[in-house]
């Protein structure tokens, strides 16, 4: 099997200048796969169609955490309503400032081992799959790999 065989085709993309508000609507409503609505992460493409990042749910969570809470262990001293306040102020922030910029992508012909290797070594849960033209044609999720692995365990060739 290759990446292309188990990936989920992507229909919707984000742009770096989209607001977070617009992006989360897309994250919540995009169609991924046959029945699934909503996605855990979408690729971000610039005006030339080049892949520049991924915006995932985790990135949205990270955008809530003030930088100073990263410097020391201060989670115990937060208060109810802190996240809600930051969320309300974050709607107009731009995707480019929140997305994960380091993107590991695989080509559509990549064997599954390459996909697993990238996911584990780079600590990511999804990989954009690049087609012949260099454009992103799909997303490969941890879940897709898991299903492919389990399939092998239960079915003979």
């Amino acid at each position: 099997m290759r990446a292309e065989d188990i990936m989920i085709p992507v229909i919707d993309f984000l742009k770096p200048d989209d607001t977070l508000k617009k992006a989360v609507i897309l994250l919540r409503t995009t169609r991924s796969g046959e029945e699934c609505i909503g996605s855990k992460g979408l690729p971000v493409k610039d005006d030339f169609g080049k892949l520049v990042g991924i915006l995932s749910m985790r990135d949205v969570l990270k955008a809530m955490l003030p930088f100073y809470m990263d410097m020391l262990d201060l989670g115990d001293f937060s208060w109810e309503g802190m996240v809600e306040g930051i969320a309300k102020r974050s709607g107009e922030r731009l995707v480019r400032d929140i997305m994960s910029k380091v993107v590991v992508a695989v080509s559509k012909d990549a064997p599954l081992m390459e996909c697993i290797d990238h996911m584990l070594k780079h600590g990511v849960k999804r990989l954009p799959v690049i087609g012949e033209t260099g454009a992103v044609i799909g997303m490969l999720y941890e879940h897709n790999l898991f299903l492919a692995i389990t399939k092998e365990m239960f079915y003979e060739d």
Partner: protein
Amino acid sequence: MIAEGSATQQIVMDKSFWAATAVFGISYSLIVSERIHKTIIAIFGAALVIAMGILSQQEAFHSEELGVDWNVIFLLISMMLIVNIMRPTGIFEYIAIKSAKIGKGEPFKILAIFAIVTAFISAFLDNVTTVLLITPVTLLIADALDVDPIPYLISCALASNIGGTATLIGDPPNIMIASKAKLDFMEFIYHLTPAIILIMAVYLLAIKLIWGKKLKTKDELKARIMKMNEKEAIKDYSMLGKSLFVLSITIIGFIAHGMLGLEPATIAMLGAGLLLLLSRKPNLHSIFSEVEWATIFFFIGLFIIIGGIVKVGLIDLASLKVLDITKGNLFAMSMIIMWFSAFASAIVDNIPYVATMNPLIIDMAHKLWPNQAGIQLLHNPQLMPIWWSLALGACLGGNGTAIGASANVVIVGMSEKMGNKITFAKFLIYGMPIMILTMIISTIYVWLRYYVFYF
């Protein structure tokens, strides 16, 4: 007062004089320009000094007069190790949260208490470390109270620079001065701490005037602070106990090092060694990798570059000039050194500045009192106020501009991350008047204490 025509040997302006002068001049200009990292410049410059034969490697590595001052290096490394071991215990978060609760959630009270706590911690730990440990909590508190965090950031940097001046181990210039002038911990406590307590009191009044009325919050937000449980900050009680025990012993060691005949670096190494020994399975890799090696090698490189210009006589030449300008009037010299140091340190890094001033002052002392040597010369009662003036000027001068001290650079970086950058001009509006105010107090202090009442 000045011994006319005292024993100044002829300075030979040969090839190595110009080579050492060029390495020094170019290195310092590059450090000021900030185009290349200062550590890279210092290490490369030092290597050139040795490679060109200005200093032999033996002199650069082992000479007390011309080479690396290992007393400074080991003191810095050991104190960094102690902090690296203490940090994960949560003690600093605990102190900061507790301070905010003592302030009952009143924004200005908290600002003032944080200033005092920061100054106090800075007196014993590196300023940048203190700022990195305290500001995250102050920013959290400012968010909780929904007040402007900028005053908290600026005050934290200013207070850390003031507090660092109080002791031998508080700020690198003091460590360097103490090592070269053979001054002990208690002499710094006796001569500088009273000045800093006075300056801190005036500083608190100043911030009351600047920010006292502007910082306001609602009562329901104060409740957020009072709900915080500072005990949750402590992650490792056993390690905390050991850390506090070793830190106390180390400070007692500093207090007694003069009497014990041990250098401060020895005391700090004993402290770091004991704390490592007491830690159960210490993560040595992270404790040692968090030592700021770039800063340490910056010092090492600088010492060698300065050793070069001392050996070839450039410092000798400069000290003749200063003596010429001041006509041997020591009060004038002390005042000129204090104010010049302040403005110099506001513009450039005070570490290379003090590294250059130390041998310069010692050279002047040789010319002023040619018949004295060793401790008798370094601790000449007329020379002592000059050391204190240098320390006060070089440390407090850091408050003048956003680039004057590393602590300032750190808080400017943080404000940038918050998306509300403290510009150079904005820092100057607060920093420069505070610097001048603290210099005026220092001037009066030095004048009254050493030139009017002589105690």
